[in-house]
């Protein structure tokens, strides 16, 4: 660059700012301003009680006190976490297993492309339509019940959506089906990045494939596993479409499947902006902390 005159370089570099204008403009208007007004709202009492509009009155941190001291937040946070865990455990288990198999040269699995295509497919399906499909399939008179009756497993239809465990399991199961293909592909990329000579050396030393997996693959995958864990947790906090459609927004039975974002959605519909704001800010903080961990772990290089 030094060959050129300085003014010419500066003139080029001005284009860096010009090309950033669309992003900056749209980001500020549709993300940054809403973020600040959301935070601003959280300090006000502002809701409707019947036909009467209460507020907006400045009340400081009272919304936060109210939200943190009410049992609702902890219940809904618990619901979200439980359903995330139900989905995440099989997801990480099968992703590791499949990743190890796909990348194992001694297994030489056939039809790999077919299996990868199939397991990734549910990730692209409209979550709301998928949930609606599950609702019809598992309804009292739906095909699952009729199959189980025909096979003689059940004497009378089982009401899946009146059972806390069954509904939560269904939500977790759908999350598992929708995400394990994606996780498998991410982990495979990590596994293929491991130096092949390590595996060869271990085989020469007589290590079994189990030993290789637990002593070499898993420890070397740690950063990518943590990345998967945290991003999945961030995604889990945003769980909405599936339980919302499956339970028609009620989170029934007994609000046991009501997630944090479903609760936020309720506040938005009832125009309870104070509480909605406080809840948004809490979610923002949790996501922020988790993101910082991701960046620290993956060491994303911003110096370039």
């Amino acid at each position, binding site marked *: 660059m030094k060959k050129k005159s300085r003014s010419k370089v500066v003139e080029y570099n001005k284009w860096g700012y010009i090309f950033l204008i669309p992003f900056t403009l749209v980001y500020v208007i549709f993300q940054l301003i809403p973020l600040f007004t959301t935070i601003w709202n959280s300090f006000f009492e502002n809701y409707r009680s019947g036909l009467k509009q209460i507020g907006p009155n400045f009340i400081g941190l009272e919304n936060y006190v109210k939200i943190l001291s009410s049992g609702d937040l902890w219940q809904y946070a618990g619901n979200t976490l439980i359903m995330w865990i139900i989905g995440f455990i099989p997801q990480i288990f099968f992703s590791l297993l499949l990743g190890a198999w796909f990348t194992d040269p001694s297994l030489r699995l056939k039809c790999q492309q077919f299996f990868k295509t199939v397991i990734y497919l549910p990730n692209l399906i409209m979550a709301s339509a998928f949930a609606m499909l599950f609702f019809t399939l598992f309804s009292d008179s739906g095909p699952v019940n009729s199959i189980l009756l025909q096979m003689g497993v059940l004497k009378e239809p089982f009401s899946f959506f009146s059972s806390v465990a069954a509904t939560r399991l269904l939500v977790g199961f759908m999350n598992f089906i929708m995400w394990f293909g994606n996780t498998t592909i991410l982990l495979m990329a990590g596994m293929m990045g491991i130096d092949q000579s390590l595996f*060869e050396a271990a*085989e020469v030393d007589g290590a079994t494939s189990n030993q290789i997996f637990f002593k070499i693959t898993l420890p070397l995958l740690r950063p990518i596993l943590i990345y998967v864990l945290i991003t999945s947790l961030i995604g889990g906090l945003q769980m909405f479409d599936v339980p919302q459609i499956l339970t028609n927004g009620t989170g029934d039975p007994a609000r046991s499947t009501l997630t944090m974002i479903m609760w936020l959605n309720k506040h938005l519909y009832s125009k309870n902006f104070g509480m909605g704001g406080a809840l948004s800010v809490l979610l923002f903080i949790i996501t922020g902390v988790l993101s910082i961990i991701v960046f620290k772990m993956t060491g994303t290089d911003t110096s370039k």
Partner: protein
Amino acid sequence: MDKDYRKKESGSSVRVRRIIAYIVLILLAFLCLVWFYILFINATRSHQELTKGFTPIPSSHFGDNFDGMLHSTQPIVKGMVNSLIVAGLSAILCTYFSTMTAYAIHAYNFKLRKFAYTFILAVMMIPTQVTALGFIQLITKMKLMNNFVPLIVPAIAAPATFFYMKQYMDSVLSLSLVEAARIDGAGEYLIFNRIVLPLMKPAVAVQAIFTFVANWNNYFTPALVLKDEEKKTLPVLIAELRGADFLKFDMGIVYMTIAFSIFPVIIVYLILSKNIVGGVTLGGVKE
């Protein structure tokens, strides 16, 4: 070279492991596909047949159900057109401007460059839901409620797509190419459109598909923004189907409606699956 090692591990143990692997893979593939198979079967059956219980054989009422869906109380076809408009325009704007943003950071050496890059990465993980409250208030003030604009225009600022484009650009775009074009007298904007964009085609294609699918499937924001029946996108209509007293519905039509919103994506995916599955990790994970 690993032949001699393989001899050590007895051939039978590999065979057993291979059989287990195939069984598990087939079971998982079954778990992924069976729902869509039942959906397809049920979309071909009439309401009466459906109430009698499940059979794995398709029936002959596909046409009836399709016709019933077209004339149902919900504007499903209009919903599909709306979804196509929103998802299509979002995908175009998102990929074009994300590439432009990535190019600004990649090719120019301006004062705020590092700050801009760090900032975009830092905000990458912020979920849209946490700003939804302010977003709804803002577009109400801008009189954009019940309008496609707040669903399409925000796609211009997509940090995750930007990150993918930046990663890809680092590996394919050398600045000497840009220098050469400058010497030939090309303007910066022309260089971006004529040289940089074509080079980025593979990344643009992958991200266009992902952005399209994400917007096609998006339910949260459209449900808050779109109020008129005629403006609603498919996910919002599907949710309504659940909200109504659904036992009164013709179940054949319900299944057909779900199928109608799922199968287009499946077909497109099967055609493009190689690019999509390969593209997931192309620029996504940094090691």
